[in-house]
């Protein structure tokens, strides 16, 4: 098989062998339905509880506050739609940001069509919201604030603790989409006053198709999937036990050496960023310099288009992603890059590289060498670069 340098951990991660191993018995000998009376099934209730406890511990939450779902998008949909419905009598106003994942943005649009009002907060050039603007957006009928923990494209971390305090002060529910942040940043739902939190297993070396929603005790939230009495009657459907066990195992592994792992990822990332910023001219680092996810790097290479860059990197075995319109199949580049104020042509030339534990400095050296050559090659082909060079020569 072709050897890859995988730098798209924000898209998904490989399931760890230990995780797969932990899951396997639950497909075969321990296949019982946890709702069944006989021991083969009912003993899986205990397994579910243990998994819940492991995940709750990583958040400073209680096990009864963890609800398993099919992933981040379901958790986001549930948190928004079911809260909107449950608190409708109190008000119909929701506050979120312009840089949320589409699982939040499109759900908000859906709610807007059904009579809810949504305020989309702007972000600054680094991608952070303004707490003053948040305060100003709060109305008597505001029922929910939903702000992502950290952004999936540019990695910027939002002032979650401060938002939590503001929400609490006003008695407004606070949901955070922590799909990129959970297991990659320290989170304490009580210290940060988070009422609901979405996460997804495959973003931290767990399996795909499983996630959870943390719901603080006391939050009124309706069922989203109706049927059986699973998940304290709030999320019907036979539990995905292998997936849940795998996700819990991934959490356990991530938490075991969290400080060392994150420090290692950050160091490798900083090395990559330093080299690229020093060695490739006309390059911009997108997102906050320090307040960002440890594995995230996002660049804009002027005069170059993102899809071309990705194809050429792929030919060298390097996996990355871009906010270019061409990669999304639309004419507009990423809404996040637009929200931080990038001009279109700069946004089209963006490259996101997201690192994981297994990436090394040697790999980063290889990536930088290839990237230098590819960017130069594409610039030599670019009419924008030609014009830029001619203009600077004329001066």
């Amino acid at each position, binding site marked *: 098989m072709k050897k890859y340098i995988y730098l798209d951990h924000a898209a998904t991660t490989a399931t760890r062998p230990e995780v797969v191993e932990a899951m396997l018995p639950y497909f075969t000998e321990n296949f019982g339905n946890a709702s069944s009376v006989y021991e083969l099934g009912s003993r899986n209730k205990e397994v579910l509880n243990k998994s819940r406890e492991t995940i709750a511990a990583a958040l400073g939450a209680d096990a009864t506050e963890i609800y398993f779902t099919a992933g981040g998008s379901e958790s986001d949909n549930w948190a928004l739609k079911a809260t909107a419905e449950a608190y409708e009598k109190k008000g119909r106003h929701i506050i979120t940001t312009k840089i949320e994942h589409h699982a939040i943005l499109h759900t908000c649009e859906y709610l807007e069509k059904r009579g809810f009002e949504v305020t989309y907060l702007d972000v600054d050039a680094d991608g952070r919201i303004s707490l003053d603007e948040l305060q100003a957006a709060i109305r008597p009928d505001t029922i929910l604030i939903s702000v992502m923990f950290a952004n999936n494209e540019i990695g910027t971390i939002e002032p979650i603790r401060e938002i939590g305090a503001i929400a609490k002060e006003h008695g407004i529910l606070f949901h955070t989409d922590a799909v990129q942040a959970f297991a990659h940043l320290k989170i304490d739902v009580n210290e940060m006053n988070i009422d609901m939190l979405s996460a997804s297993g495959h973003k931290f070396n767990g399996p795909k198709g499983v996630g959870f929603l943390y719901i603080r005790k006391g939050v009124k939230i309706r069922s989203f999937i109706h049927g059986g009495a699973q998940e304290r009657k709030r999320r019907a459907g036979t539990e995905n036990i292998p997936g849940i066990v795998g996700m819990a195992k991934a959490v356990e592994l991530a938490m075991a050496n969290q400080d060392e792992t994150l420090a290692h990822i950050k160091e490798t990332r900083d090395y990559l960023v330093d080299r690229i910023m020093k060695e490739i001219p006309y390059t911009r680092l997108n997102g906050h310099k320090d307040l960002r996810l440890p594995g995230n790097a996002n660049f804009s290479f002027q*005069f*170059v*288009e*993102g*899809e*071309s860059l990705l*194809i*050429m990197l792929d*030919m060298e075995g390097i996996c990355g992603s871009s906010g*270019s*319109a*061409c990669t999304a*199949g639309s*004419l507009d*580049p990423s809404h996040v890059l637009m929200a931080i104020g990038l*001009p*279109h*042509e700069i946004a*089209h030339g963006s490259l996101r590289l997201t690192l994981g534990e297994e990436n090394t400095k040697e790999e980063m050296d290889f990536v930088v060498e290839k990237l230098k050559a590819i960017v130069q090659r594409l610039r*030599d*082909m*670019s*009419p*924008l*670069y*030609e014009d830029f060079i001619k203009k600077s020569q004329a001066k």
Partner: protein
Amino acid sequence: MYSEKVMDHFTNPRNVGELENASGVGTVGNAKCGDIMRIYLDVDDNQIIRDVKFKTFGCGAAVATSSMATELVKGKTIYEALQVTNKAVMEALDGLPPVKVHCSLLAEEAIHAALWDYATKNNIEIPGLDKPVNDISEHEEEEEY
């Protein structure tokens, strides 16, 4: 996603570059939608395209269609070059994904813009050739005034 031909023309684009003292230059597209193509023509006294070069800012399909378009017009008369349609470019590339069809239109427009520039400079009329609407340099000039 792309055919082998597209990948070939993307990774080994034909006729990349600029022509000094080109007989005609056309630039189309805009940075907003992420594609800009510039075509340089060298037309001889018999109105035959002796040489052609291109520069493109854009995705894989944009580069490949520019490359193919230059191949298709090279050695042709300016009248024959006008007949090179986006369909012909697409067919020569064994097709494009639906979202990339606009790239082939851009290639056709870039050729037309370069032909228009040549025709204007030489005071000739090429039947069937309209003034290009997509010339970014024009927009830039308009903005400057």
